[in-house]
């Protein structure tokens, strides 16, 4: 039991040092702009098809599932407002982050893990390149920048999917639908979406990099790094979701 506690404390110490090093390296030149842009392309652009599909389907399904409850009270005209609040406040950042943690988090964990066990990270270090800055800082920045953009995109695609359903069943026009959508959301809702997405993006990047950068035990370690990158980041995303919702609720009142 004592050994287990000791191991957990050592792990927490390692995570703390890793996070602190990230912020140190972030502000210290030289800056790897080219690599950051490349990683933004990898994380953002390459996730678009999956995010588009998921966001679109989420919008349709959520609308179809919400309609019967509102129909009981003859309030289906509230659907656009309900959908916009649900998608912008909760679904868009959460769905994007969960998809990204599965796709991007595991990719980062596996990539850095395999680089670690095949000595590529050591090779970078001995050739006068700071591997932490090149590999970790660029990837964490890329996820922190692109997840908010992807979340806004998911919100748009989700709202479009919802519009198809609303248009089909309630014969609501495009203009009326979107005017109701924008009437229902406030700047605080958009702010909360972006805030959550920034925090989720950072979490996905830092957890994936931590697991990959510290992986060991050969190919088994690479698999574990990818797996833990997803499990840990999903767990943290839900914890952060609860905390940020509480903070935003406090700001709302």
């Amino acid at each position, binding site marked *: 039991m004592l050994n287990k506690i000791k191991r957990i404390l050592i792990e927490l110490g390692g995570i703390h040092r890793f996070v602190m090093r990230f912020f140190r390296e972030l502000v210290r030149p030289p800056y790897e702009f080219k690599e950051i842009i490349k990683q933004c392309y990898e994380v953002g652009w390459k996730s678009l098809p999956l995010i588009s599909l998921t966001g679109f389907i989420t919008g349709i399904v959520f609308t179809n599932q919400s309609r019967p409850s509102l129909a009981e009270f003859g309030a289906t005209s509230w659907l656009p407002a309900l959908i916009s609040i649900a998608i912008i406040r909760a679904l868009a950042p959460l769905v994007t982050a969960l998809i990204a943690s599965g796709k991007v988090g595991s990719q980062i964990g596996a990539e850095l893990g*395999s*680089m670690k066990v*095949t*000595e*590529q990270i*050591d*090779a*970078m*270090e*001995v*050739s*006068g*390149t*700071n591997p932490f800055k090149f590999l970790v800082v660029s990837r964490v920045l890329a996820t922190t920048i692109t997840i908010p953009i992807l979340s806004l995109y998911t919100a748009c695609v989700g709202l479009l999917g919802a519009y198809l359903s609303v248009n089909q069943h309630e014969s609501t026009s495009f203009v009326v639908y979107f005017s109701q959508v924008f009437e229902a959301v406030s700047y605080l809702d958009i702010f909360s979406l972006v805030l959550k997405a920034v925090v989720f993006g950072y979490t996905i990047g830092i957890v994936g990099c931590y697991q990959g950068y510290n992986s060991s035990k050969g190919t088994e370690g690479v698999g574990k790094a990818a797996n833990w990158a997803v499990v840990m980041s999903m767990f943290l995303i839900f914890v952060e979701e609860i905390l940020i919702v509480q903070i935003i609720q406090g700001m709302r009142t």
Partner: protein
Amino acid sequence: MVNEREHIDQHTKVITVKGVSKSFGDLDVLRGVDLHLFKGENLVVLGRSGTGKSVLIKLISGLLKPDTGTIEVLGEPVDELDEKALQLLRLKIGFSFQSSALYDSMTVRENLEFPLVRNKRHLSRNEINSEVEDVLDAVGLLHTIGQMPSELSGGQRKRIGIARTLILRPEIMLYDEPTAGLDPITCIEINGLINEVQEKYKTSSIIITHDLACAKSVGDRIVMLLDGSFERGGSFDEIFDTNDERVKPFYDYNFII
């Protein structure tokens, strides 16, 4: 008698290791190791797997820190340098990894350009291309310039790995098991390449190996790592002129079996 070549400057030590110990948990890997490398010398470190040979060169390059003892490379104490000074010192040290450690996501050209564009930012595109082609030509693999590492054979990967370290014109080369996992013909080619590199680039080298043919072919001096410290040193013949039961099977396995 140590195999002395003209190029060895016996008055200048480029690496000095004094009383270095390193443990991993309860496992004592190195116990008070002393070692020096003369300028222009090819020093072979022989030993069985798991005796800490690779750990030794990782300590020398600053990838690991010793528990006790001191390491000086080109007059600088490796374990006392700050990050920036260590990074500068590393530019003078070429490290050829056992696994070659080529960057999988980059072509051969990008692998070779990587250290160059980061450390010699003043170079023009033409100069970079010329440097890359020069070192690739030196290892005889200019035709692979556009290929991915996954398309190369084990021997080619080793050569490209060596080329990547040469591109920064290091003063010291550290080879970690350069012939491990290669067929005998490729081993001979790699041994030849190590000697060519020494002659062309005037490097001083430490070659970690358990391959006696490699040791005999490239070593000016050989030291043998036994039980965590160096107990034997000298020429190839001196090393194996012994009845030490820890040394003899090593020789027998390589040359008789």
